[in-house]
């Protein structure tokens, strides 16, 4: 277990350095003045602002020293300041709860939709539920999430007035229902498919045939013998998708005007606020990597076979 943990943590380091380095490289090593690029081009800056940005990003040092100093600051929770002097760390801290609430709500909805649909289809293989499942998965796999988002805003927000169109004024359940539902539908398809295939495969395996031959009731075989094993691949997939949800859904947060991390990133891009773009995206990268790491470390606890792999 210790060796597995150690290997997994060591594997994360190149990805971590690689991805943050990529972001940093793109912003600071492209030909041209990084200060004007951070400010988004033609904006006029006072000499003192320029000086403070040069100091903040250590632009007078050699490139690798700049990067190392920035990463060192990030690891200590310091993401720098934007052009108005606001701390990017504070910005991240205010935005984070919205993203986490959205991700958790979407995760629960997705779990219920995906697993129920998959199991239902798997039990009634080749019949109506199975066909419905196929239709559902293809439809939501194909149609982009933002189209579903705009469509539901129109139907449930503008026409029916059931839910707020955007923003967070309505508070937790109401304001998050639509964005979480769209995220859940958009990502439930692979889950529904995986649950179905996995259940069908398990029901065909030898030990289920043995159990049937011994005269155990179909219900007991289903609930006691089949489901637990069928859900092993599903749990792996769920873990990875949880990391992806936490990594932020920039598009959905923007469309529903949620002040989460993704929405903050999109607004910073829109207002060409370079330091916020760099800070928030590096934070999201780290957040995603750590979430993926935690999931991987939890997995051997659920499935003991992984420990020996």
């Amino acid at each position, binding site marked *: 277990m210790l060796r597995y943990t150690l290997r997994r943590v060591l*594997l*994360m380091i*190149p*990805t971590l350095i*690689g*991805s943050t380095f*990529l*972001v940093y490289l*793109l*912003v600071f090593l*492209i030909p041209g003045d990084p200060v004007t*690029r951070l400010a988004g*081009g033609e904006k006029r800056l006072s000499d003192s602002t320029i000086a403070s940005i040069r100091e903040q990003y250590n632009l007078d040092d050699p490139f690798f020293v700049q990067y190392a100093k920035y990463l060192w600051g990030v690891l200590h929770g310091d993401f720098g300041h934007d052009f108005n002097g606001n701390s990017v760390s504070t910005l991240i801290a205010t935005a984070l709860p919205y993203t986490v609430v959205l991700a958790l709500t979407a995760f629960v909805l997705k779990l219920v939709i995906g697993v129920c649909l998959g199991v239902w289809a798997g039990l009634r*293989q080749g019949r109506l539920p199975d066909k419905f499942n196929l239709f559902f998965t*293809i*439809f939501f*796999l*194909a*149609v*982009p999430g*933002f*189209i579903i988002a*705009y*469509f539901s805003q*129109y139907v449930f927000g*503008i026409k029916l007035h059931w839910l707020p*169109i955007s923003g967070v004024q309505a508070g937790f359940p109401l304001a998050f229902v639509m964005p979480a539902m769209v995220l859940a539908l958009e990502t439930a398809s692979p889950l529904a498919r995986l649950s179905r*295939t996995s259940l*069908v495969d398990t029901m*065909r395996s030898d030990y289920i045939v043995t159990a049937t031959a011994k005269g155990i009731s179909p219900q007991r075989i289903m609930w006691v013998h089949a489901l637990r094993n069928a859900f092993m691949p599903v749990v792996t997939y769920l873990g990875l998708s949880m990391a*992806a949800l936490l*990594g*932020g*859904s*920039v*598009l959905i947060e*923007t*469309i529903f005007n949620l002040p989460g991390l993704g929405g903050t*990133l*999109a607004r910073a*891009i*829109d207002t060409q606020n370079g330091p916020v*773009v*760099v800070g928030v*995206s590096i934070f*999201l*990268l780290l957040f*995603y*990597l750590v979430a*993926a790491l935690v999931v991987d470390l939890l997995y051997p606890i659920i499935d003991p076979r992984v420990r020996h792999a």
Partner: protein
Amino acid sequence: MPESTTSPQTARARRGRPRSGLRSLWKSPWFDIAAIIIVVVALMALFPSLFTHIDPRDCDLSKSRLGPEPGHLMGYDIQGCDYWSNIVYGARTSLEVGVYTAAISFVIALVAGSLAGYFGGVVDSVISWTSNVILGIPVGIASLVILYQFRSRTVWTIVFVLVLFSWAATMRYMRSSVMQVRNLEYIQAARGLGVGPWRILGSHVIPNAVTPLIVMTTLSVGAGMAAEAGFSILGVGLKLPAFSWGIQIALASQDGNWQIAPLLMFFPALMLGLTTLAFVVLGESLRDALDPKARR
């Protein structure tokens, strides 16, 4: 494995001649609908003048956001331009992003996956490690940051960023598929007969391992088109005066335009949704026809 109960002879008889799977494609009505949609959109992209005689840049501000009327099936956009001709001319860019991304990823995945899967060793380690690093990065955020750095963006900028993050997943499929084929008896027989490694790879391994890659590539065209639109909505995609469904959706989404004139959002979203759906149905049908193991 229930398959093992049938004798090899009956199995062979049931399988029939090779490629018979492809013929079953034509029997499915879903495949027909998908194929028709793709052909129509492709024609729009290649010959927009077949579908409209109105210049998409011939605009009349006084007609801004007006609804459909005779001769102007989809009404007018914010600038008062005919919306139908805008949609027709937008097909090319949207389709270009999807098709170029899928095609370039296909080539990279084919070459890298075959090399990694067939030769193994150091080649495999380098290619697999690179793809693992890329798969570890959340695509949406990374592509946003990269696109933000480009002051002017063309179709190729978008394609470059999408390819950068999409080849790794398809490469993995190709690699594992090559690794399965590599050890089959007929490959060993070819090796025993003294056929060189490149010839084996080119004429024996790849043709038998490429099916999952073709399916993946078809499925990914729609994702590329959706990403183009997503980038435009977030302000890091293509911009006017280019035509694309993504730009039209983005313009409609700004300042609550579509809440006043929902059709501005509806038409490009409908075209984009139908096209991405068509590519997924096409990919799924191909999978069913070419890969009998996945048919359950």
